[in-house]
């Protein structure tokens, strides 16, 4: 599955939409099914209907949690992409940096010190 901007946007949108729709379903199911203006005959609030609603509510709540986890997964993928994926410019962090100038100075210092040591400490090194 290609990782493109459109894909990621789709996934986030669908995740949000899924959560909202599941929640709406839950709320709808939790109602007693009484419509305004109808005869209060209680035919809508039977045990069978209640049982069916109970099962549906379980399904919807599980789906809600899954949708939330899906969004979480999406954010993690985004973080990974940001850190070391194609979002990073090419060649960042390479190059010599300050080492170049420092090295020249250090080289000169070392050379001078070695020559001074050689000139002054003639007897130390022995032969």
């Amino acid at each position, binding site marked *: 599955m290609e990782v493109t901007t459109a894909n990621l946007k789709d996934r986030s949108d669908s995740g949000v939409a899924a959560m909202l729709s599941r929640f709406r379903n839950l709320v709808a199911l939790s109602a*007693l099914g009484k419509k305004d203006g109808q005869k209060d005959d209680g035919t809508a609030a039977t045990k069978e209907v209640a049982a069916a609603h*109970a099962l549906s509510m379980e399904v919807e709540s599980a789906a809600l949690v899954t949708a939330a986890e899906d969004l979480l997964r999406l954010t993690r993928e985004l973080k990974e992409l940001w850190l*070391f994926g194609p979002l990073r410019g090419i060649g960042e962090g390479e190059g010599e940096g300050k080492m*170049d100038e420092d090295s*020249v100075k250090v080289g000169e210092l070392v050379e001078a010190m070695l020559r001074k040591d050689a000139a002054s400490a003639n*007897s130390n090194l022995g*032969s």
Partner: protein
Amino acid sequence: MNSTIPNGTPISLRSWPSSSKPQEQDAISVFFERINREQGGLRSITEDGLRQEIAEAEEGKAGKQDEGDTEEEDEEDPLDRKKELLMARDEMLGHIESAYHSASVTLDFISLLLSKDTPVQATLSMSPALKEIVPLGTLGVDRLQAPRIDKAQKDDNKRIAKGWKIQNINKTVDTILDSATRLEKEIESETKYWGEVLAISEKGWAVCRIPSEKQTLGVRFGFPEASLTFKNQSLAALRRNADGSIALDQGFAGSEPQVLRVRVQVNGVDTGSSAMPNAVADTAPVEAFILQARNTIFSSELWQELNRESRILGGLGVQAVDDIIVLSFNSTKKIVLDLVPLNDSTPLSSQPDDRLAEGIKLSLNLLLSFAHRQNHRRRTQPPPPISGRKRQTPSYNLLRPIITRLNHQRSIDALSSLLSDLRSIFSSASLSSNAEFKITHSPPQPPPIPNISNAERTVLALTSSLEATAIFKITPTTTISVVSQTAQAPAPTIIYIITLNPESPLTVRFSAPAQPLTTFTAVKEYILHATSCALAADHTSRSPSDNEIHKSAPGKSGWHLVVQPNVLRKIFEGGKGKHLGFHFDRKEGSGLRFRVVWDWMRFDLNDDSNIMLGKEEERIRGEGVYEWRSKRRQGGKEWEDGEGEVVRSLGDVIEGAGRWVDV
């Protein structure tokens, strides 16, 4: 000739693989396969290990019967769970199947029922099989009597429904709340984890995904140009703890931190040691651990490359013994390298040669990084043409540049001490107006590699193609110049190129060696002899015509050159002649010595008879020796014992030598 196999097809001469069982069991390749599979390779197998394993297996069998049930239960438990899982899965599938079947049967029944009243809708929900078997509208439903649900039951139903609904809502709320708290905690720890990972990444470490576990992040702290064994160890996993903080997990390659230690020893006693950092405490942030891991892998790679290089440097005074490498620094000092684990060791007191040890360790680190850079360069250049031989990367130049530099320093010192001794002798012989010497260091020329960076140029400048020139002016007509050059391949050597200025009389009589010299002793001998010859040539008289000098002529005149370049001859009237010889030599402990010897010629020029030489001659009048010595700074002693007179100049000595004395 008919042949079924066309020419040119390659023929394999291997026999068919035999399939008979007993032979298969014994074939050695099968053995190897089994060993690799079961024991994990031949490396870890020893005879003792195998015997131990056999003994353990026998013990195990005996012990098994004692332990019996508990063991079997334990062993069965995992098996049971697997079986349980599989059984449960099968059961679930069976249940789902039956549920599906019953649901579809019910659906068909209901739709058949409804097909009488609402055929359109019913046909939509009927399965095609049923449509074929039973025609539509064959079942009918009718109300027999009005529903006997009275109001009380309706109320009851309502209440039951309400109660059930409330229960379900509560249950749903509980589940949702639970998962919400769980997700919140998860998000918190994830945020913390990612915060730390970001901090690590911003410090410059490369974060990547671990190939074996796709969901764990890891950090690469190794060096991309290191050799393969070290590259495999250079990845560490960043695992998330319970509260979200990061722990570094180095896997099986993680070992205790190590560092290279450089010590300077004189006769077995340590006189200096490089600094050793402390091990990182457990409470330190992750970056400290990563840094320590990187230092460890750098040090272990450095150690391995040092060992590899020391194997080919035996001729240069490098020894690899046990776990240490010994390198001789000068006649008294030795440098000892070893790899030590970082414990919380007590810090050593500072010793006089600490700076030297630290300097050597730093330069070794720099040289390893330079070798990495060369690897990178070699990798990015187009590869050499393919040949049958396998190319191996040459061992890195780690100790060789240091040895080269030391040799260079030593040779410059030797040259300057020799020349300054000569100059002091000259001054004591009152010749100082002529003699001077100068040592210059020419700037190093790095080889023309394209795109070389300044850092690499510096390293090359400090270690390779070092050059120094010593110019020694003996007399106004003669100048010797000695160029000392270092070379690194195939072994660190120094060559000396000696040149004379062209108008010197020495070019005819004792010219500079055409090939560059390789030892300092040869150079020293050349310089000493050349100096004596130059001095001799300087004191010849300018008149070549007279062969015989009057006896009353001044001592300095009349000397002329002979075949031996450092001897002068003077012929007096009557055939007697004198020789004057100049010698330089160096004695251990007493420095440089300049001798002038004059004696009568042992044979007459006018006499053709051969005279036996070599007998012990007593000292005759008119012969003698005079010496000048270079003053060595030995505790303030200026004059040698027994020498209390004023030092004479060379001119006076020659004057004295050339005077005619009646014998």
